[in-house]
């Protein structure tokens, strides 16, 4: 079973599709992951399972992979999750995700308006969305997340490499949206906005529900204090811009709601 734990999770799932339901039962959602090349061992460790849940998971896995055989179940070393809730810096990142999710929620309505083509008003709206994604989500939020938080962990690990790949894929979708606007290609704009929304929805879920709780448990108080101070420096560097983007999100929601109620 130890050999299995050192294999890529996606390979294992492909070989034993019945594992999908077992992993799902323990809220391990690797089946839908865009990369899925984390080690099975890392995936089990990063999820907040109790020793009893871990044993139940391995028992169910063993029944699928080694039917009718008695195998020794491994016990993975995991740092006991701290009793504390999210530390202030992590809470901040989750709060910023909430603003990004609010914009993602608006994308289907924006895409509906693109069905008739790209007029000047729609180009302006899409440009504003791109501006939010590039400056609030990417530069401001990732200045904290990618440039500071992730540096406390092994960035060569598959877990973080997957997060970085998601960020790069998101940036590629945004470049494609900009190209679509320049070429007047409404279909391409809609396609890449939708793809960005789907990618980020899943990406943020993974961070909020799995990665951040795990990171929160690993960080010591001294590291949390340093992150908090470094985040204040980022806030100072960006000045009032993040608050202006939050106001823009509220205005955008109001504008689309008004359009919906009129149609």
């Amino acid at each position, binding site marked *: 079973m130890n050999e299995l734990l050192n294999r890529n999770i996606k390979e294992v799932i492909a070989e034993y599709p019945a594992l999908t339901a077992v992993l799902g039962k323990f809220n391990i959602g690797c089946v839908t992951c865009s990369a899925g090349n984390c080690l099975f061992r890392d995936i089990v460790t990063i999820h907040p399972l109790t020793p009893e849940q871990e044993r139940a998971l391995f028992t169910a896995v063993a029944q699928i992979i080694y039917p009718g055989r008695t195998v020794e179940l491994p016990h993975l070393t995991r740092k006991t999750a701290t009793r*504390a809730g999210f*530390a202030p810096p992590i809470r901040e990142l989750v709060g910023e995700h909430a603003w990004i999710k609010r914009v993602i929620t608006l994308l289907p309505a924006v895409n509906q308006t693109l069905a008739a083509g790209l007029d000047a008003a729609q180009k302006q709206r899409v440009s504003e969305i791109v501006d939010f994604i590039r400056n609030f989500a990417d530069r401001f939020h990732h200045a904290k997340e990618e440039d500071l938080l992730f540096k406390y962990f092994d960035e060569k690990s598959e877990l973080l490499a997957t997060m970085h790949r998601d960020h790069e894929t998101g940036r590629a979708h945004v470049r494609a949206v900009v190209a679509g606007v320049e070429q007047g290609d409404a279909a391409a704009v809609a396609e890449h906005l939708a793809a960005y929304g789907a990618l980020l929805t899943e990406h943020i879920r993974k961070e909020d529900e799995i990665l951040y709780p795990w990171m929160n448990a690993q960080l010591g108080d001294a590291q949390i204090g340093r992150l*908090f101070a470094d985040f204040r420096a980022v806030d100072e560097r960006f000045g009032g811009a993040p608050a202006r983007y939050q106001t823009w999100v509220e205005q955008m929601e109001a504008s689309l709601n008004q359009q919906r109620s009129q149609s």
Partner: protein
Amino acid sequence: MNACGCPGSQAMDFRKKAEGAAAGAPAAVASELGQWPIQLHLINPMAPYFQNADVLLTADCVAYALGGFHGSYLKGKSIAIACPKLDEGQEAYVEKVKVWIDEAKINTLTVIIMQVPCCRGLLALAQEAAAQAKRKVPLKYVVVSLQGEILEENWL
């Protein structure tokens, strides 16, 4: 039983029964205390060991109740102790915590209190100081039961 029924003063006996106690002499546990003095009236909040430090503000009774206090909480941190029920001149305490935050530029502040209601005063005092301070620092509180269990541990 205390006549007024105050849970902070009520007598209780939770001595371990002989069969439950560990056999033999306990192993020596190294102290993690890295400074002196520790009483909040006596400390200088600008002392070198408070500069940029992770600081514990601990109710007097905590270190007696919490078996793993040195290894789990004191290690790597600077400390001050106080009793929010019995100590006088607590305005000075608020000022000292503000100096920690604004001038000694502490990294984090962890307040550890007992579960008895009067101990909440120490957390309130720290929150008041943090609210008055110009700098912001992560503030955590830990609540310890009378028998040394961690009942709550949360960042504010």
